[in-house]
């Protein structure tokens, strides 16, 4: 039965062949020949990797010369020779062997050599030793840390605070904890380097608005709104953040907060300046801050702040709460020095009158940054010879996105007296005249 059926099918097929039109047969024939060719041709790879013989590979390995690990640094690089301070960096500072009045350390409230802070640190040293030997998650949380976080939250009138053991790492860890790839961040042009690094680590879209220019920010926000309307699905999952500094370190100006927003979600601050300790903290509502306890890299993967530094910070907070008048005194001094430094020939003051960290820039730049830096360094050196300790503001020239012009940093502290301020102003004025003219 089967063979008869087969034969019958075969007959049908042969008949079909005869009946098919010629072009059909030719096309089928060509296709069959093509398939046979493909089946028998050699396979090839997209990249000719097997091209090199072992001998050639060894030769390549022998020949390759990498760059040296670090390029040579010239001996007179401006940042190579550090000023060495002998003893504490307090109001009367000994720099490179010379006694000067300190206008360079960020010791705004003069707490760097306050005996109460030292006593608190000593008490803590007696009980805890120096280091914590562990991150916060693994027995590195001391009662001192919890106290400090409580006090900071109360001082800043927020729900919760979280402390970091290094000021730079605070904002650089906080930003990537919230803003991820695909989110949008609006940041001021004069944002400091730590913020820039935090943004780089977060891999978000960064939109920069001109320094303190609220109209520019509004323009960017409006543009973003238009973008959102074009793509509403994407807009629903893109978070948006605005980052500003309270007092910009690079320009000495204050951000116009009332115009900006009614309520702040996260405040990040540094304990290394006014609080005369080490570290930084973030504060805000628990909903926001608690997230950093598991996703702030500088918090989870780093040892906690040594307790003696935390105890000193608590004592500094105590002092700040006990005499709130100290802030008005600082403000007065800032205004005074701001006024006194006006009118120095060749130098202009950059910064607001209430800012304790000012910059003195060259009124007319020579056109070349290196020469500007040399001139300013000459002024700084001569001022130090005459007993006023100043420093240039240091930047990493190749790494900054918007490099500020070279400047001399002037820091006002509550410990500086009238005479100190007068002396500083007159010294800088004289030196500037000799150097720049």
């Amino acid at each position, binding site marked *: 039965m089967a063979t008869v059926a087969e034969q019958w099918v075969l007959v049908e097929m042969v008949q079909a062949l005869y009946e098919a039109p010629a072009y059909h047969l030719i096309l089928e024939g060509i296709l069959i020949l093509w398939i046979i060719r493909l089946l028998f041709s050699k396979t090839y790879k997209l990249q000719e990797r097997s091209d*090199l013989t072992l001998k050639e*590979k060894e030769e390549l*390995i*022998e020949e*390759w010369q*990498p*760059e040296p*690990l*670090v390029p040579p*640094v010239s001996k007179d690089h401006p*940042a190579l020779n550090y000023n060495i*301070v*002998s*003893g*504490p960096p307090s109001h009367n500072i000994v720099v490179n062997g010379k006694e000067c009045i300190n206008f360079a*350390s960020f010791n705004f409230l003069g*707490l*760097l050599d*306050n005996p109460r*802070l030292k006593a608190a640190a*000593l008490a803590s*040293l*007696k*009980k*805890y*030793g*120096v*280091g*914590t*030997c*562990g991150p*916060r998650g*693994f*027995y590195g949380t*001391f*009662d001192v*840390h919890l106290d400090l976080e409580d006090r900071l939250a109360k001082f800043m009138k927020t729900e919760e605070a979280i402390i970091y053991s*290094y000021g730079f*790492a605070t904002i*650089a860890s906080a930003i990537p904890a919230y803003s991820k790839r695909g989110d949008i961040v609006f940041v001021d042009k004069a944002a400091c*380097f730590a913020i820039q690094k935090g943004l780089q680590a977060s891999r978000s879209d960064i939109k920069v608005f001109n320094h303190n220019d609220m109209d520019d920010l509004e323009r960017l926000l409006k543009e973003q709104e238009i973008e959102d309307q074009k793509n509403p699905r994407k807009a629903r999952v893109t*978070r948006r953040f605005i980052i500003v500094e309270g007092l910009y370190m690079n320009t000495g100006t204050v951000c116009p907060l009332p115009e900006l927003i009614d309520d702040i979600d996260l405040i990040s601050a540094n304990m*290394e*300046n006014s609080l005369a*300790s*080490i570290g930084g903290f973030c504060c805000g509502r628990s*909903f*926001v801050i*608690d997230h950093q306890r598991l996703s702030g*890299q*500088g918090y989870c*993967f*780093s*040892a906690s*702040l*040594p307790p003696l*530094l935390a105890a*000193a910070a608590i004592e500094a907070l105590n002092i700040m709460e006990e005499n709130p008048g100290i802030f008005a005194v600082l403000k007065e001094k800032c205004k005074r020095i701001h006024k006194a430094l006006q009118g120095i020939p060749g130098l202009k003051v950059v910064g607001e009158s209430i800012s304790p960290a000012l910059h003195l820039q060259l009124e007319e730049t020579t056109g070349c940054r290196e020469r500007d830096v040399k001139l300013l360094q000459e002024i700084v050196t001569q001022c130090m010879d005459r007993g006023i*300790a100043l420093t240039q503001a*240091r930047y990493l020239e190749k790494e900054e996105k918007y490099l500020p012009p070279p400047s001399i940093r002037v820091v006002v502290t509550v410990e500086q007296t009238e005479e100190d301020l007068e002396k500083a102003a007159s010294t800088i004025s004289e030196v500037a005249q000799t150097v720049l003219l």
Partner: protein
Amino acid sequence: MADPGGGAVYNGTPHNQSAADCHGGNCWKNGVVKESQQNGNSNFYRPIVESFEEAPLHVMVFTYLGYGIGTLFGYLRDFLRNSGIEKCNAAVEREEQKDFVPLYQNFENFYIRNIYMRIRDNWNRPICSAPGAVFDVMERVTDDYNWTFRFTGRIIKDVINMGSYNFLGLAAKYDESMRTVKEVIETYGLGVGSTRQEMGTLDKHKELEDLVAKFLNVEAAMVFGMGFATNSMNIPALVGKGCLILSDELNHASLVLGARLSGATIRIFKHNNVQSLEKLLRDAVIYGQPRTRRAWRKILILVEGIYSMEGSIVHLPDIVALKKKYKAYLYMDEAHSIGSVGPTGRGVVEFFGLDPRDIDVYMGTFTKSFGAAGGYIAGRKDLVDYLRTHSHSAAYGTSMSPPVAEQIIRVMKLIMGLDGTTEGLQRVQQLAKNTRYFRQRLSKMGFIVYGNEESPVVPLLLYMPAKVAAFARHLLNRKIGVVVVGFPATPLAEARARFCVSAAHTQEMLDTVLEALDEMGDLLNLKYSRNRKSARPELYDEMSFELED
């Protein structure tokens, strides 16, 4: 026998003889792997003995089952919370911001809300004494299943500390040897208020840097205020676009962050696997950058001395041989190994008897063995000079606090013997003795313990999330403080307890802990190891005979 391959090599060869073949093959998976001694080098005196035993199958099944059940219940509870049937204890957004895009993605918090939250009383335990061999833990209880804690006010005193990185036992409350630290607080104060490049370099820093260079036997060193920041701010200064970074699989978050911030291309090689590294190096040198085929500007290998989650010690002689052959640069993070391995505590370079000039960039932290805070980078003078001018930390980060610097100076002098006593050396030797004893006893009991037998970081595998919690809680009740780690610091199915042996632990303390662990092991059924090894297994291990031909 060994084939030297291309060029003269100082220490050993890139390819170990037959022992190398077993890395990809069967013998790596179960039991002890032994690497035979290096050839042609009389300095190298002991073999690397490490083990990463795999768990029996039923354990893995139950582990995943545990996570599965946890996840199911997680979905159920989320549903109940969202529909309002159950009260939600977590903090919520403000009313005005409810129609903003949510700040946290629901999914990334799922694990935290539902699995981590159940057992989170085992982490962030606050203490109120120095983190020495024994410490005081503040008792805290929860009334709402770990959503909030409150302190009862009671303090659990004299808990044996197996969790803090106190390798040499130098983290202790004040005693006369810390007199200089007290004096420094009184003269220098605490803060510095400026960066290294501006007005923040004190004479104390210079003293410390000279001492660190002497300690490590290198030309120069530079110190920074934070160990994490040392990596994340200096790797971008050393490499940039057009460079290649070869980073170990299990490198610390700071190394990963530093590598990412640098902008260089990153390629990962398998943990401590010299073959994987060699393959990457060969491909990199021969084929250059992807697509353009330009040669790489430089290649930097990032490894750690001791890996904190695995307890393994880097296979340094092999890696140094590789780096010499392929002209790459080696950056070694000795956060855990400085001060704790090596006959005089100088780290893994001394442990293996290598030449200190072979490593290009030494990096380490002062938090662990030195009982202080901060990090350092050391090496040749031109490297350190370059970092003084180009490091992010030197230009923007505050310098180290003076009393912390003094603590490091005092400890380093102690270890080096410069204070006139042999106390430092004794501590290093005591640590080595404690480590060997602890590890041997644990393996004999039948626990699966990872890592090198000389490493003071001892991970003990627990696998199941519920056992992780039970282990830590039971031990705290018996006044032993341990650290347990789970996902995401470790792979999902390999949760572990990590012990840090200290030179300050006495024999009695270690015996107490071992006894408690023995009982825990029986109670929680943790003795998974299938090789109940004797004290000296390597020479008699059956596997090595098969490979010798």
